[in-house]
């Protein structure tokens, strides 16, 4: 085995006094060998991004490096002068960031931005030709036209390719990628992962890949390091760690990964709770006082029905209209046409007053637990608010809120606290309690776990499942994660560009997909070749 190209030795980075622990990163040792992908996995707050920032010399001010060395090609990066470091950065070390939408300068042509990397480091000659070659390397369609385009013309995936091209411009020996695919759709994520893998093979670059997703790890990693609370708890060959984790935390994390095994279908009830027929909604883009904008169809001719006690999954990538369709059902968005029949009554023509009795029977759990709770109100009031609106006496509603907190496994002491005192997972529990306070029949869950860490995600899914069976809820479950969908849903509807392209029982959709797009989606699940070991926990 050759000497590692990048070695982090016993790195400790302090947190300011008053932080939740003494050090952001403590005693971390990692090594990246030439031509190898090292994945650093961990949940939010585990210090994985901080480690990457330290390597790039991008640590925020006020976070001192307490001890340790970062050896890169024989130099200790931490001992280098800023000027010497600057010369290394970009030339020998490349970095790809998480958010492709904001990492490019919107006022600079793509070609100029990539070319800048050459110019800054004193490269002369035919920069344009080199940039074209790079764009070709990252498989962007039609490089000669993209080179003169502004970033807003490119999609998220294309921008991320441009970022990768910039990072690779000067042929660095190490590429640091900090969650480069987290903001992207599954199919795009797969393309980017394949691209990184391919480029890394061709060029022999070492890659330090930061991610929270074990699927991604299974897809590309050669070696894995698992981080928890600023420490590396387990490190080893990817296969070994994934299939036979040693450390309890790794075991817990892997056990929490949605396994994607199809849930046994339950006998469907006869009553139809919800029937959606021919729903369409289009938004207008642009336009002004005298000119109407061009319509963009968000949902077109959507039809599905839900039987009592059943869970239907709406699956699709961002922009496929799944959230809009769900919002049409609760009338947060008014569809242009179609019918939403709830127990045979069309909800769409109802006014505010006539809708009121149905409001309590259809409830919704939102995606972002940080945005879905009013920061200025106490948790008890947030939960009791719904029943109070529907005429339940305040004391009774508060008593019920206390019971609900117990149901979602939170302490009743939470009643008098504010949402910001809770973690993301706890807030999502509060959101679920709020939805359940009205004793709904139909629960609409709009990506309820996508903003959460894996282990928390598993808890919330288990909670939802338990509540669903206990209360006999009918559920419309929206998600972009097919593994989650398989686990939770009885039937699946796949949406693409506003249309439901395939619908059927989960086992059928996953086992024998009929539509090309469904096959593409299934194909793009990261690490689909890897099934988390059952006995991991």
């Amino acid at each position, binding site marked *: 085995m050759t000497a590692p190209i990048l070695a982090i030795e016993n790195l400790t980075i302090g947190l*300011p006094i008053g932080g939740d622990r003494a050090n952001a990163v403590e005693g971390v040792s990692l090594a990246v060998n030439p031509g190898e992908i090292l994945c650093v996995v961990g949940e939010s707050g585990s210090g994985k991004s901080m480690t990457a920032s330290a390597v790039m010399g991008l640590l*925020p*001010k*006020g976070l001192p490096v307490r001890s340790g060395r970062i050896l890169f090609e024989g130099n200790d990066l931490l001992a280098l002068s800023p000027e010497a470091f600057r010369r290394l950065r970009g030339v020998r070390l490349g970095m790809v960031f998480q958010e492709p939408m904001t990492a490019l300068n919107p006022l600079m042509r793509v070609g100029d931005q990539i070319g800048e990397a050459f110019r800054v480091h004193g490269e002369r000659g035919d920069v344009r030709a080199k940039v074209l070659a790079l764009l070709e390397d990252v498989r962007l369609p039609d490089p000669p036209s993209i080179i003169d385009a502004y970033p807003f013309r490119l999609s998220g995936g294309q921008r991320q390719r441009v970022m990768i091209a910039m990072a690779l411009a000067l042929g660095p020996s190490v590429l640091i990628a900090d969650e480069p695919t987290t903001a992207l759709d599954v199919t795009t994520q797969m393309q980017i992962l394949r691209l990184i893998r391919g480029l890394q093979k061709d060029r022999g670059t070492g890659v330090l890949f930061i991610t929270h997703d074990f699927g991604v790890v299974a897809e590309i990693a050669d070696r894995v390091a698992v981080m928890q609370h600023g420490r590396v708890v387990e490190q080893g060959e990817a296969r070994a760690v994934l299939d036979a984790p040693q450390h309890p935390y790794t075991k817990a994390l892997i056990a929490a990964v949605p396994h994607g095994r199809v849930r046994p279908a339950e006998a469907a009830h006869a009553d139809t709770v919800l029937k959606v027929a021919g729903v369409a909604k289009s938004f207008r883009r642009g336009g002004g006082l005298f000119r109407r904008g061009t319509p963009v169809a968000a949902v077109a001719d959507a039809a599905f029905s839900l039987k009592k006690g059943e869970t239907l999954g709406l699956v699709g990538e961002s922009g496929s209209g799944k959230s809009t369709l769900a*919002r049409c059902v*609760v009338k*947060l968005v008014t569809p242009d046409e179609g019918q939403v029949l709830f127990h045979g009554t069309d909800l769409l023509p109802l006014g*505010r007053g006539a*809708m*009121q009795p149905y*409001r*309590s029977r*259809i*409830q*919704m759990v*939102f*995606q*972002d637990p940080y*945005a*879905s*709770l*009013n*920061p*200025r*109100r106490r948790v008890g009031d947030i939960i009791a*608010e*719904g029943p109070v*609106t*529907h005429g339940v006496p305040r004391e009774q509603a508060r008593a019920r809120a206390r019971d609900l907190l117990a149901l979602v496994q939170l302490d009743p002491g939470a009643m008098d606290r504010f949402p910001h005192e809770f973690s993301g997972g706890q807030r999502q529990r509060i*959101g679920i309690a*709020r939805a359940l306070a*009205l004793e709904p029949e139909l629960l609409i869950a709009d990506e309820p776990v996508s903003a959460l860490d894996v282990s928390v995600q598993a808890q919330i899914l288990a909670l939802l499942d338990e509540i669903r069976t206990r209360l006999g809820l009918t559920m419309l479950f929206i998600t972009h994660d097919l593994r989650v969908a398989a686990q939770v849903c009885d039937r699946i509807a796949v949406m693409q560009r506003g249309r439901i392209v395939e619908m059927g029982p989960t086992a059928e959709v996953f086992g024998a997909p009929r539509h090309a797009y469904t096959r593409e989606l299934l194909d793009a699940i990261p690490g689909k070749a890897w099934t988390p070991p059952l006995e991991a926990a």
Partner: protein
Amino acid sequence: MSFWKRFARNIGALVGLAILVLVGLMAVLAPVLFPFSPWEMRGIPFMGPGEAGFLLGSDSLGRDVAAGIAHGALVSFLVGGVSTVAALALGVTLGAVAGYGGGWIDDAIMRFTEFFQTIPSFVLAVVLVAIFTPSITSIVVAIAVVSWPPVTRVVRAEFLSLRSREFVQAAEVLGRGPIAIMFTEILPNALSPIIVLASLMVATAILLESSLSFLGLGDPNLMSWGFMIGSGRSVIRIAWWMSVFPGVAIFLTVLALNLVGEGLNDALNPRLARRRGTLPA
């Protein structure tokens, strides 16, 4: 970190608050410190500061300048406070309806607001006071009428961005009415900029009142700082103290209100303050 601690980090804001407290005390204690009408002739005219028992001198009719300033403070605070409350009531309501309602309601309200914004505010205030005869009520009304449009714009912007937040959608799904949503869900989250704006509006209102009084459009029964400057203007070469001391009072009060406004802004938006370097990270 508590709100008060963040506020106390800004030394300018503390100084401003101290000045405000002093001016406020002066306004409240005026009847005790100077237990006579500020219009009363107390001695020889044109006495300089410290002469003949006049702390800050006497004016052309032998009235006590210090007493005028002390009694005028109450008028200034009254006008500033009441007109700001009135402007907020109007501005917040219209802004909330525009931002939450959207569509043609929003268009109508915003065009109405722009109508007021296109008229120079001071000229409009002068016209209003002149038509309705100068009195404390007409002055308060005039100042409120010219100062609500910025409130409407700020509140509308806040409501527009908060309206699409998920907690508002959640309240809609729960079946809450639009008025309940506006006032219990959105407004508490939009309070920070409103509070900051209000502190600055009080300062502007005091300036406006002084300007109106300076032009002779003040309430003829109430002593006010602007009136004192106006009446001292013609004799400024022989009796500078008649204009300078009321001027200093206006300057200090307005400065203090601005400092407090700045401090409130930093304390209510801690992240912005840190970026600006007021607070160490």
